[in-house]
């Protein structure tokens, strides 16, 4: 008889002895090399966390491989970070370098600490979701291949948190990242009356549209879309499979930048759209990887030490950002959704 509502395993069963002994008693940490955090406790105990990248979508063989490494180098204790990195919890300083060599021999990169690019938080995409405007794992793989050096080194001005969401549901929390890649549609849904009639609650479907573009059509017992009002968010498709929004010829990726969630120095902020559309070009999305690399490089060579991407842009001004990157500014960059006015410049002070 299975237990019901027993809750998750207790975390204390999962902690290595050094953490149980020093729980809540850590004094400080340093980063002796990229990919390694050294935490020192009040009593002088030292814990080394070796951070390694993972594709997030992993097989049980991969997990078993990582377990074998953890058994060999850190008594079988490991954890995962909020950005899908793996951290090996090593209490014997002598085993840090051998573990890193063993990881690298398996093609697992070590890095993601301090002023580096961490792993890209992302979503399911074509692998396992019904609403994507693009794939997630494939773009992430292509971008991480391209920016690999920024993961394994700490040569950026500050941390760089990148996120990828394959539709505007944004399961992966893209809206407050330094750089966000977001799958977008560009054409209104095509109403399939037969599917809408079958099991869709028309009032809920009508109510789901944020712009009021959907009206009931009593004649067909379905709905019609006012295409001028639609901004292609795809929320109606989530409500009904009859609102077909996927459009291979027009779906693609938008790039937003400059968000953050930490409170350090400046308040948390949303990312802002700088590239409204790049085409879906599988398997390697060259337009997307190139755009991201370009933004990272302009940031890296212009920002002051310690400045997050958004802090840098806010200091120099967004008008300056478009000049430095050469990204074209268009009418599409100016918000026309519901909270737009607060983004308009109500001041005569700006740069040229």
């Amino acid at each position, binding site marked *: 008889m299975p237990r019901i509502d027993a809750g998750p395993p207790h975390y204390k069963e999962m902690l290595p002895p050094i953490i149980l002994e020093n729980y809540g008693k850590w004094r400080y940490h340093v980063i002796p090399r990229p990919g390694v955090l050294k935490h020192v406790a009040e009593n002088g105990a030292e814990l080394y966390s070796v951070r390694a990248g993972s594709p997030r979508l992993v097989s049980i063989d991969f997990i078993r491989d990582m377990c074998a490494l953890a058994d060999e180098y850190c008594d079988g204790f490991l954890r995962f970070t909020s950005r899908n990195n793996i951290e090996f919890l090593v209490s014997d300083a002598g085993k840090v370098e051998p573990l890193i060599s063993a990881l690298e021999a398996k093609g697992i990169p070590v890095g993601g600490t301090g002023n580096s690019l961490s792993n890209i938080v992302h979503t399911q995409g074509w692998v396992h979701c019904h609403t994507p405007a693009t794939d997630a794992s494939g773009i992430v793989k292509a971008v991480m291949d391209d920016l690999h050096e920024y993961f394994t080194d700490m040569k950026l001005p500050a941390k760089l948190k990148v996120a990828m969401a394959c539709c505007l549901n944004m399961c992966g929390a893209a809206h407050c990242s330094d750089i966000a890649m977001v799958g977008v549609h560009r054409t209104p849904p095509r109403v399939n009356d037969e599917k809408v009639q*079958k099991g869709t609650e028309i009032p809920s479907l009508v109510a789901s549209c944020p712009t009021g573009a959907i009206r009931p059509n009593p004649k067909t017992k379905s709905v019609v879309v006012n295409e001028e009002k639609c901004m292609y968010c795809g929320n109606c498709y989530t*409500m009904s499979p009859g609102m077909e929004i996927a459009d291979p010829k027009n779906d693609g990726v938008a790039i937003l930048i400059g968000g953050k969630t930490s409170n350090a120095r400046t308040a948390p902020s949303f990312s802002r759209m700088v590239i409204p559309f790049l085409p879906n070009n599988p398997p390697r999305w060259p337009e997307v990887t190139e755009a991201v690399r370009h933004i990272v490089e302009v940031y890296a060579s212009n920002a002051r030490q310690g400045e997050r991407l958004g802090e840098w842009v806010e200091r120099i001004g967004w008008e300056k950002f478009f000049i430095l990157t050469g990204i074209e500014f268009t009418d599409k960059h100016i918000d026309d959704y519901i909270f737009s006015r607060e983004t308009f410049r109500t001041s005569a002070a700006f740069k040229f």
Partner: protein
Amino acid sequence: MEKGPASPEIKEKVLAYLATVEKAKSKEIAAAIGEKKADVDLAVKELAFEDKVEYLYITTTFVALKGKVGAPQ
């Protein structure tokens, strides 16, 4: 916080109401049978354990008599 067992009358009323519809949200059931939503939630929980009703996630969560709604076509 132990919530105690559900009221057998409310469970009967929930089943009777679900027999008249394809599926419903627990808030709608509560309104239809004139009971507090918290009591309906508890009744639905027990009925689910008894395999008489099930939860369905179709854009939001609904409750239906077990087996009444099939997989998507």
